């Protein structure tokens, strides 16, 4: 009995130390990535190429989901608002919900599962097939040649994708509110316009998506680079990217929201 307890404690302690070790390793890796980022900016072609894979390839899912999230918000919002005779506020409600919360968060979750997992799998496979080793032996630093461009492309795409998601969502809300339900178009837009502040609402939303972009990209490249060079290793790392990113996004969202929108 005592033996089992001791064993259990030992296991917990072991995994705690392991976790801290990994965290330190991840920190060192991020530092190396930042230090190795020079070539990402001098050779912009590298980042542009990755932007295609992280950004352009995510466009369809972002546009479609944005549209549907906006339409659902329109339907649900109207349902509730009209009980209080405030259905003309539908535009504000949809826009604020999207710009402040749903846009950055949902776009980041989609981005993590679409582009983040792809980045992890790609880097993991490059490692498993010794491509990273080969690069190192060719005197090319894989961190600055492979990791950094992917990291930066993720950081750049995320706010753009979130903005596209928001615009599509607001358009979806407009489709439901004005085209389908028949609210007055003028008052819909003017209420939205009056209720949404650029700096307070939109800019804060963009900052959020920027932070999420950094987090997701960092997790994705690290998991890929750190993955064991086997088939199971890569698939495990891909799963971890999606799970860890999602949790980190939601956690960061809570932190950022409590800073940005504190009871004002």
């Amino acid at each position: 009995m005592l033996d089992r307890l001791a064993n259990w404690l030992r296991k917990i302690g072991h995994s705690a130390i392991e976790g801290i070790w990994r965290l330190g390793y991840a920190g060192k890796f991020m530092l190396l990535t930042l230090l190795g980022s020079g070539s990402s900016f001098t050779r912009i072609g590298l980042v542009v190429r990755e932007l295609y894979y992280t950004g352009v390839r995510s466009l369809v899912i972002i546009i479609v989901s944005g549209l549907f999230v906006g339409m659902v918000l329109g339907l649900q919002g109207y349902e509730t608002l009209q009980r209080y005779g405030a259905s003309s506020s539908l535009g504000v409600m949809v826009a604020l919900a999207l710009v402040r919360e749903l846009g950055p968060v949902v776009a980041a979750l989609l981005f993590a599962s679409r582009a983040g997992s792809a980045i992890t799998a790609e880097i993991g496979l490059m490692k498993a097939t010794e491509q990273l080793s080969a690069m190192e032996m060719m005197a090319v630093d894989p961190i600055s040649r492979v990791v950094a461009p992917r990291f930066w492309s993720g950081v750049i795409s995320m706010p753009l994708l979130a903005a596209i998601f928001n615009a599509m969502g607001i358009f979806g809300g407009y489709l439901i509110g004005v085209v389908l339900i028949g609210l007055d178009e003028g008052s819909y837009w003017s209420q939205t316009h009056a209720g949404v502040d650029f700096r307070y609402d939109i800019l804060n939303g963009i900052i959020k998506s920027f932070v999420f972009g950094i987090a997701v990209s960092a997790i994705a490249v690290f998991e890929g680079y750190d993955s064991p060079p086997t088939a199971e290793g890569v698939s495990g790392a891909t799963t971890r990217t999606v799970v860890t990113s999602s949790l980190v996004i939601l956690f960061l969202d809570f932190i950022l929201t409590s800073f940005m929108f504190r009871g004002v």
Partner: protein
Amino acid sequence: MQSENFLEVKDLNFTYDTRPILKGINMTIPRGKVVAIMGGSGCGKTTLLRLIGGQLKPSRGHVKFDGRIIHELSRRELYETRRKMGMLFQFGALFTDLSVFDNVAFQMREHTDLPESVIRDLVLMKLHAVGLRGARDLMPNELSGGMARRVALARTIALDPMLIMYDEPFTGLDPISLGVIGNLIRKLNDALGATSIVVTHDVLESFQIVDYVYFVSEGAIVAHGTPEELQKSTVPFVHQFIHGEIDGPVPFHYPAADYPEDLALESGNA
């Protein structure tokens, strides 16, 4: 100059976690030679190559390449030195997102400011040397194993390295490709005036092309000599290895308890 020791490995030890992989390896490789390092699977041959390439740091001892100790170089110097090395990985390790042409051009684009027209000519020359000039626009996943290995070889020699390392170049090839690669290793070495290290366990193929052989077993060198000397060797391990005998110093059975005991056939329990 010819007899100068181009690569010198002295008392090289490497320990992974607490498991010793290499135990006191000594070897000297003169300029211009093709040297084979042989041994069973998992005896630390690949580790040895990584130590030479500076991807790992030895626990004790050193590797001296062209008069400089590898693990004492700064990161910049190490990268400088690696430009003089080429390494062919076991399965080629071609960049799967680049075409054959771009794979071979990779180092030239990374390390030189040559104009694209010069790079084109150089790449086609290297591809011609391995007989794959016509495959320049294919992607790596469209190549057969042997072709991929040859493209990787062209990429390895892209910047005319002084030292070429081959990690299991013969694994998984059909006899024709095997002959082609073996031939190329020898021909390229002599044409480029390079020095080559071939890590392999393919006795037949490598004995035809190499000048000298080191036998590694359990992290230590057990025998070395020219192929002719080793053919006649009486060292039990070498004999077993060259002739592919099932049992010998390398036992067929993984260490285990006594067989009848394991099966609970002891008279008392039966």
